[in-house]
């Protein structure tokens, strides 16, 4: 065989492989659309950092609403008030707070033309609560005892205990029984080819790259003006900013420092969302240093929250004194703690934590020193951790800052402090109960500090079970008061989320946002209602 033969063989092999590859990838069904920022407002291309694991509500997609593809029984307004969606009115609640009755909207159909009925609601909730369904958020519905349909247009939820925040849970998207009931709930086709009643239908999902949606022409709430919506998954902040600048994207979520670079652009608007997204240091009860009341109270007034907001967040946020932000109606007025190192030192001196040489304090031969973990790669938490450690050092307490993956951190959470983040705005119960209830100590990521305060436990149950808002407010005020007396967590900041969007649309709003902010957050929370500027 000649050299030419060898070369021919090599090139034939390579060419065959190329052809096989090309043949396997043809995608003939996509229609032609030049896309990008057309400027007329009929298409929107949005850059987000994360993509959902699944598009099935049965496995947790869109559980907090604004899912684009689906609707819940209820939805939230820009002011976070509940409004009817697939239900035609807010639920009727019995006096004991354990029965919720929803009347359903007539004439709603799924995007495949099948009618929406009470059976779909029952199917959705029962499937989520089924032990074989791999939905990690099913604990949200823990209070549900039974879900029953009465006729085609009424659904009755019976609860195990009175749960005042239950209506907030029913923004959960409803899946069609006829489509989602086929195949395996955990891995079936519905996870990637969803059918819903929502304002958009899914055109295509290329995992790791983007999801494309088009307006649902038969949407019961009216056809959206934005006819084509693309969610591009771009994990890197700098690349997302560059693609926004080049016009490839119409909008994106950006960290404050990158959002600032668009401030001078005439054709871009910056939208900041207030949030419940807090950063806090857990103080494990079982650690003799962080479990000490004097140490806790001293740290609580020794951290300079305002400087953190200015320096770490470029002013885009607020000082945090608990999970409830200071501008929430649930915030207990008067529980703000001013930065006061003199007070911190006095608390420590009085309690017997002393440092003769002006270094790290000691008491009974124990140094006031503990380890503070932050999840590696999270720059914002790293900066918070270092700022916290710097402030603690000034009053003679040592926080040794270390980084680790969650696999490293999790087994140490009972002993070492962690720079934690979280927050969900819909109801104070959602944050306070799992974070502070002593029964949930050390369970998963609930109550990471193993906080244990009987007064708080009682108040948490009162707030959860009472149907009277004033009574609930009193209970949650009590919890926040207790947090100033015995801080099990040092809350540092609430972080604003910053979005930059092309000037193509007017009147953009945001909701109050949770810690996890995916498609459902940002100015595109209600993209179906966006109005072109011209």
């Amino acid at each position: 065989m000649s050299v030419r033969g060898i070369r021919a063989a090599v090139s034939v092999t390579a060419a065959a492989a190329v052809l096989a590859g090309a043949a396997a990838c043809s995608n003939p069904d996509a229609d032609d659309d030049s896309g990008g920022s057309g400027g007329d407002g009929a298409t929107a291309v949005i850059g987000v950092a994360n993509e959902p694991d699944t598009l099935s509500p049965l496995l947790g997609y869109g559980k907090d609403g604004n899912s684009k593809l689906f609707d819940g029984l209820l939805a939230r307004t820009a002011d976070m008030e509940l409004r009817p969606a697939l239900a035609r009115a807010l639920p009727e609640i019995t006096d004991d707070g354990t029965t919720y009755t929803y009347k359903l909207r007539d004439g709603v159909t799924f995007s495949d033309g099948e009618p929406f009925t009470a059976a779909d609601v029952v199917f959705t909730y029962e499937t989520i609560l089924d032990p074989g369904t791999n939905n990690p958020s099913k604990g949200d519905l823990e209070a549900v005892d039974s879900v029953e349909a009465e006729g085609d247009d009424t659904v009755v939820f019976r609860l195990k205990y009175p749960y005042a925040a239950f209506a907030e849970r029913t923004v959960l998207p409803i899946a069609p029984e006829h489509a989602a009931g086929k195949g395996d709930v955990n891995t079936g086709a519905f996870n990637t080819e969803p059918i819903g009643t929502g304002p958009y239908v899914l055109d295509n999902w290329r995992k790791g790259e983007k999801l494309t949606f088009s307006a649902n022409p038969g949407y019961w709430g009216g056809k959206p003006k934005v006819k084509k919506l693309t969610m591009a998954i771009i994990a890197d902040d700098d690349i997302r900013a560059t693609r926004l600048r080049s016009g490839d994207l119409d909008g994106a979520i950006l960290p404050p420092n990158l959002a600032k670079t668009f401030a001078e652009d005439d054709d871009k608007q910056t939208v900041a969302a207030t949030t419940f997204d807090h950063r806090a240091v857990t103080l494990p009860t079982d650690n003799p240093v962080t479990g000490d009341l004097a140490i806790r109270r001293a740290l609580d007034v020794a951290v300079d929250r305002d400087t953190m907001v200015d320096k770490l967040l470029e002013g885009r946020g607020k000082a945090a004194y608990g999970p409830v932000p200071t501008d929430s109606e649930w915030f207990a007025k008067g529980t703000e703690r001013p930065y006061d190192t003199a007070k911190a030192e006095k608390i420590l001196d009085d309690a017997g934590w002393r440092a003769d040489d002006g270094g790290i304090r000691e008491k009974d031969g124990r140094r006031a020193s503990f380890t503070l973990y932050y999840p590696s790669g999270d720059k914002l938490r790293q900066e918070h951790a270092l700022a916290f450690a710097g402030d603690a050092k000034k009053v003679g307490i040592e926080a040794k800052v270390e980084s680790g993956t969650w696999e490293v951190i999790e087994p140490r959470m009972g002993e070492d402090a962690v720079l934690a983040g979280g927050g969900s705005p819909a109801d104070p119960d959602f944050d306070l109960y799992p974070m502070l209830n002593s029964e949930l100590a050390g369970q998963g990521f609930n109550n990471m500090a193993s906080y244990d305060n009987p007064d708080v436990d009682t108040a948490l149950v009162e707030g959860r079970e009472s149907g009277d808002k004033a009574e609930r407010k009193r209970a949650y005020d009590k919890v926040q008061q207790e947090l100033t007396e015995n801080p099990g967590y040092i809350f540092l900041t609430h972080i604003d989320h910053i979005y930059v969007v092309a000037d193509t649309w007017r009147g953009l709003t945001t909701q109050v946002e949770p810690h996890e902010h995916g498609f459902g957050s940002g100015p595109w929370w209600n993209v179906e209602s966006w109005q072109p500027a011209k």
Partner: protein
Amino acid sequence: MTGLPLAPMARMAGRRLLYAVPVLLAVTFGVFAIAAASPFDPVKAYAGTAGFSASQEALDQLRDSLGADDPFVTRWWDWLTGVVTGDLGESTSMRQPVADVIGERIGWTVLLCAVAFAVAIVAGTLLGVLAARRRGGLLDRAVTSAAYALEAAPPFWLGLLAVWLFALQLDALPAGGLTDTGTDVVSFGQVAEHVLLPASVLAVSQMPWFVLYVRQGVGDALDEDPVRGARSRGLAERTVLLGHALRSGLLPVLTLIGTRVPELITGALLIETVFSWPGIAAATVEAATSVDFPLLAALTVLATAAVLLGNLLSDLLYGLADPRVGFDG
């Protein structure tokens, strides 16, 4: 080129196939063992960010449902018996059957790797011959030192550098994805434009090996008697170089083709991640960190099969190019 020794070639392929069975068994068993020993918790990985607010009861149910507490030997055996009956199992990280995950993605990976490999071989051979023609010359020194430098550069770093230069600074090529963000159309033009950067980076990361092997092979061949004989007969330099020196200098390159396949796969792993290329390599990273046993095992089998095929291919080519070697291996 008549008379390909088809029968011995088929026998060799058959022998290799038999040999592949125990290799694949051992490799998948190893994958299950390593995944089980890794610090990643499949339940936490499955729950993702929802896991931070999940109740203990929900996490326990997940653990049970995912079979995360079963010993890995049991899981391996379940997986193996499933595969024998044609069921590749279901991917927990993608919430899809494994066959669907692979079906959707493998074409794009084959395309990327094939383009990159073809470019690496052709360009590598060309540069190698040019460098060997005048060893120690300016071109040779430039090519050789560039090759050594690139050999040491990790592909993901080259990828990030390319994104920075061509996409961010020059805005000449798209930074990632299969098509432009605003369009769904998978047209030839779109894909060609988007494959250019990742394939070039992958090719450049593979090229040094071919350059250096060809340069060495051709350079040595230039000193051999047959080549000197050809020169002395007054044959054209071009004929000497391509017809004589390259022919014998190419032999080691054939071996290289097979041995570069594993490197190509790991390179693709990193390149696909950097460029958001929707191939199976990007899925491998996800499967590994999620301890997604069925997907991980299937992808490992694919990678192993690619390596074995690469070796077979290079042995077959070698046998064809140099009949003294034969097909007995």
